[in-house]
């Protein structure tokens, strides 16, 4: 048996597979833009009717700008906080020589062994004791350190040529100068990758915000969308429209920066979270 698929056939088949993955998103878009009569047809209707008014209705039913602002605020502060702690820790673990360095690194890697289901209830209690449940901080602080970030940055830092550090030291500079003027500028792409992961994780998180918040004015988009979904399961076109405008930002971000995400997956292989 000699199997040899022609390149053209292979390309066409690959495209079909790719489009199949796009189909559910396309179908949501079609439903959101259909006329009311067209969504209730069988077999399903697959071309656009361009009923943009549904979007206006879905948008006015909920305080979406507030939820978007909440998500952006939570993601933004988490990114700044987690990147700062990760850069400092990874720097110490790769450029500062001290005894117990490998021990500290294994202690940090130990976090990857502990499923985060273990910490859900105690973290809720900790935040309740200090009266931080139902705030932005409750959704930010538990993500203040990123083990994924520390791991990725350390790997990257260890690949730095030693000459860089030597030349900074000869010029009389210390760790802070080296970190600020050499390490950080060169780390921009990898910092961007980690930031992107934190952003997407933040945008898509549902369980933790559901657990620690009740007030709508601190809740992110995903929680609002889940409430919209469970409360209005018959308004298909509006639900689809809301789904489109809450998903679109991440989709655009992904399409523009997908190579950074692919880099993160390939480099962080062997690591989750």
């Amino acid at each position: 048996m000699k199997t040899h698929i022609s390149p053209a056939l292979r390309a066409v088949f690959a495209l079909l597979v790719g489009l199949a993955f796009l189909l559910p998103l396309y179908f949501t878009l079609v439903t959101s833009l259909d006329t009311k009569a067209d969504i209730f047809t069988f077999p399903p209707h697959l071309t656009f009717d361009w009923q943009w008014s549904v979007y206006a209705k879905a948008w006015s039913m909920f305080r979406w700008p507030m939820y978007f602002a909440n998500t952006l605020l939570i993601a933004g502060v988490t990114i700044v906080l987690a990147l700062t702690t990760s850069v400092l820790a990874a720097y110490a673990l790769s450029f500062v020589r001290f005894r117990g360095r490998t021990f500290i690194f294994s202690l940090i890697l130990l976090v990857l062994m502990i499923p985060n289901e273990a910490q859900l209830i105690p973290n809720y209690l900790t935040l309740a004791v200090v009266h931080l449940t139902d705030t932005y901080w409750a959704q930010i602080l538990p993500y203040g350190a990123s083990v994924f970030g520390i791991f990725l940055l350390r790997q990257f830092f260890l690949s730095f040529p030693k000459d860089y550090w030597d030349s900074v030291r000869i010029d009389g500079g210390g760790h802070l100068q080296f970190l600020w003027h050499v390490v950080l500028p060169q780390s921009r792409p990898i910092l961007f990758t980690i930031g992107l992961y934190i952003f997407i994780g933040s945008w898509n998180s549902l369980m933790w915000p559901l657990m620690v918040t009740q007030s709508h004015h601190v809740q992110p988009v995903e929680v609002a969308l889940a409430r919209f979904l469970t409360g209005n399961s018959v308004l298909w076109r509006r639900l689809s429209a809301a789904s489109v405008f809450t998903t679109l930002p991440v989709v655009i971000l992904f399409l523009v920066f997908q190579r950074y995400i692919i880099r993160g997956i390939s480099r962080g292989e062997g690591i989750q979270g």
Partner: protein
Amino acid sequence: MGGLQNSTSVITSSKRDFRKSRFRKLLRNREYRYAVLFLAPALLFLMIFIYLPTLVAFVIAFFHYHLGSSQQQFAGISNFRDALSLNVFQKSILNSILFAAMQVPAILVLSICVALLINHSSRYYNFIRTLILLPYATPAVGTAIGWLWIFNPTYGLANGVLHWLGLPTSQWLQSPTMALPSIAIYSVWHGVGFDVVIVLSALGTLPRAAVEAAIVDGASAWTRFWKITFPLISPTVFFLLIVTTIGSLQSFSQIYALSGGSGGPEYATTTTLLLIYETAFKYNHLSYGSAMAIFLVIIILLFTLIQRWASKRYVYYQ
């Protein structure tokens, strides 16, 4: 050690002085100061939100803990015993395992097939890889709405396709037998891109010489896959098997969204994590929920340990 204390007191005290001075010297040592200063923020967060809570989770599970009450009643193992004897909890564990058993093999087989199909480094194939990875980045609730409509028994695309193929249609999410498989189908769509990227990077490290020699020897694509490609990527496949299983046991968003937040119909989609969420946060039984969480954590931990153990033995890193 006690009997020797007097006779060696001089030595001990000098030893202590030495230690003290060494400690002072360490603190004066600039490298140490930087290490402490730089590591403190990250370690502080890990301490407060990971290390300590993990221990606390075990403690709470042995109490009848009520938030705000000053007296906490010791419960022994009754929370664990009660959880184990609860029908819904048993069903939830079964559901979690079934959910993984349905989606993990599908994701692995599909990701290997897709990766082999698009294993070309051209812009065209990169574009297709992007399409397949796209669902991975989308939020589960947002994309679940589209899938709810796809699974709609009367007007949905899923039944549309079955009807077109002349196959019997299904109630999908509204059927107690099909609800969990339906969510698994969603999860395969959502998660397969991640595995495809990792399989692709494993395929990228295959020695070209071996593959070319096999082609020259006239080995068929099928033989080449089973004799060369698969053995060489098998550590990666094993890694993905464990990681995807762990991820599956930790699913929440898609189950919450596709079951309308209920775990229904008839507890058909109540996974352990969803039950923990309901027990602890909807009904406020924190200790009971904690005991359930510990069972789930132990199951996940087992897979993690297998993975760590195996990766030391089989997985080859450059």
